[in-house]
């Protein structure tokens, strides 16, 4: 281990600045980092957790954030569970990750359960870094059990360069769950840069979150373009005055960049590309959609290339791999992660055009068109259907469907049929997967392979 890698999160955040004026603010409580130097959020001595494979599972973000600070450098592995994880996936996740300890607010029948809370109990803690902890994050949006992606504190913090010039004056926040890659990046930037952080809460209305972030003096804040569009629709957007705003997780189009610039004229606005597997690739700060073509082939910490239209990334921010015996390989033969995000060159820039395989991203949630087509096609009056994305100014994209019926009839009957198909979709599918509009068409193009011709 190099000297930097050997340092735990606790050691690095302590070195980044005095603890007494740095805070973690949750919607339900705030914790001063100096309290953690005199106590613990965990109801067990750290020595008991050395070398453990720990699942961190709490409803709110703040206890998870505190537990991660304490467990890095102590546990062998921490598996970080986001709020939207489906409970039925837990048994297989725990088996794959060989979990022997649950830290959190509910016991899952493992041999060791350590409650954790935002009440810091005074305790003597020797925070000796005894190993390089593996951090395991979950991929989002896939159907079925999420993939488990292994990182280290080093790979997670590769994009971060030392102390923030604002020091303890830097207050970071994000709309993301800090237990997902995008949110964890912001948490680590705050902790390793010497600042504080305002955590979001799934239960909190957007106006309340913006007001709370403003009250804590947020200086840096990130979210998806959909989060930002929702902010622009809120009458509380002026409750905060950040210096730096960042978009990631979805395609940032020129309209949302312009809208944000207009609403926050004094802020630096950047859009970044990152994924759980590939890490942070770049941030674009020139106010234009897409990224400059010269980013490709640039030698440095992050190598980018485009293969068959898809962006590939090689950097110290790449994950180590997926957990599990039959997990697919993460890296190609030359050490690049294939993101599956399709790009097209135009006028000296590359623009993101969607996901390979036509996967649709609705405000950060993924939709497989085939699943929606299956729901539509199960209506007896439908011959076939084609589901695709349409650009949308609110959620980035929205699901729309073209449908070929078995026997076309008059307009009133067709309207009724449309209603029946939509009703059937609402019963079978999550709301974001239900088509916003249905258009009846005479035919759908079928390619030479016998499959529906899908275009990006």
């Amino acid at each position: 281990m190099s000297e930097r890698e050997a340092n735990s999160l606790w050691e690095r955040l302590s070195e980044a600045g005095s603890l007494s004026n740095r805070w973690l603010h949750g919607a339900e409580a705030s914790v001063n980092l100096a309290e953690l130097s005199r106590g613990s959020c965990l109801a067990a001595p750290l020595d008991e957790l050395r070398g453990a494979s720990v699942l961190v599972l709490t409803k709110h973000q703040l206890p998870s954030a505190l537990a991660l600070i304490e467990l890095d450098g102590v546990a062998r592995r921490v598996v970080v569970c986001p709020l939207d994880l489906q409970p039925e996936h837990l048994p297989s996740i725990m088996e794959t990750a060989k979990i022997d300890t649950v830290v959190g607010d509910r016991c899952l029948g493992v041999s060791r359960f350590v409650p954790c809370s935002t009440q810091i109990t005074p305790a003597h803690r020797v925070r000796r870094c005894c190993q390089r902890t593996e951090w395991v994050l979950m991929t989002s949006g896939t159907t079925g059990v999420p993939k488990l992606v292994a990182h280290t504190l080093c790979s997670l913090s590769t994009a971060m360069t030392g102390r923030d010039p604002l020091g303890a004056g830097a207050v970071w926040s994000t709309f993301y769950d800090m237990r997902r890659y995008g949110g964890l990046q912001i948490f680590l930037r705050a902790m390793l840069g010497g600042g504080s952080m305002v955590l979001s809460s799934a239960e909190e209305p957007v106006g309340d979150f913006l007001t709370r972030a403003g009250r804590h003096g947020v200086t840096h804040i990130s979210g998806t373009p959909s989060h930002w569009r929702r902010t622009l629709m809120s009458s509380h957007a002026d409750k905060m005055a950040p210096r730096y705003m960042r978009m990631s997780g979805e395609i940032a189009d020129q309209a949302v960049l312009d809208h944000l610039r207009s609403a926050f004229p004094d802020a630096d606005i950047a859009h970044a590309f990152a994924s759980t597997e590939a890490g942070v690739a770049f941030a674009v700060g020139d106010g234009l959609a897409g990224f400059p073509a010269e980013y490709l082939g640039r030698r440095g910490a992050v190598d980018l290339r485009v293969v068959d239209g898809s962006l590939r990334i090689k950097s110290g921010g790449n994950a180590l791999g997926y957990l599990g015996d039959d997990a697919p390989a993460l890296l190609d033969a030359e050490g690049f992660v294939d993101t599956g995000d399709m790009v097209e060159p135009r006028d000296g820039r590359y623009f993101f055009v969607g996901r390979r395989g036509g996967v649709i991203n609705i405000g950060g949630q993924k939709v497989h068109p085939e699943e929606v087509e299956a729901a539509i096609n199960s209506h007896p009056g439908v011959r076939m259907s084609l589901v695709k994305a349409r650009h949308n100014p609110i959620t980035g994209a929205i699901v729309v469907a073209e449908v070929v019926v078995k026997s076309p009839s008059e307009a009133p009957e067709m309207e009724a049929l449309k209603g029946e198909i939509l009703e059937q979709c609402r019963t079978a599918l999550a709301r974001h997967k239900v088509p916003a509009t249905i258009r009846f068409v005479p035919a759908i193009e079928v390619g030479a392979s016998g499959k529906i011709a899908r275009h990006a």
Partner: protein
Amino acid sequence: MLARVEIIAVIKEVGAEQGKNLAPLSDELGLLETGLDSLCFAIIVARLEDRLGFDPFGAAEDTRFPVTIGDFIKFYEAAAKHVGA
């Protein structure tokens, strides 16, 4: 005026479909106070594009995002003049 009638109709239609409890609609009502969420507004904008033939968000000259129902309707009315609809 046409845009206003169509917009109110689509808001009510989507609210009912999505099982949302709509607040009484007025021009002063904030979009986020209507009882509708982002997905509802995404559907509303998509349907209005089908019915009115344009999406004012993509090509807006005034880059201020609408915050109230009144703003939202004005946003469409201004764009309707622009496209000659």
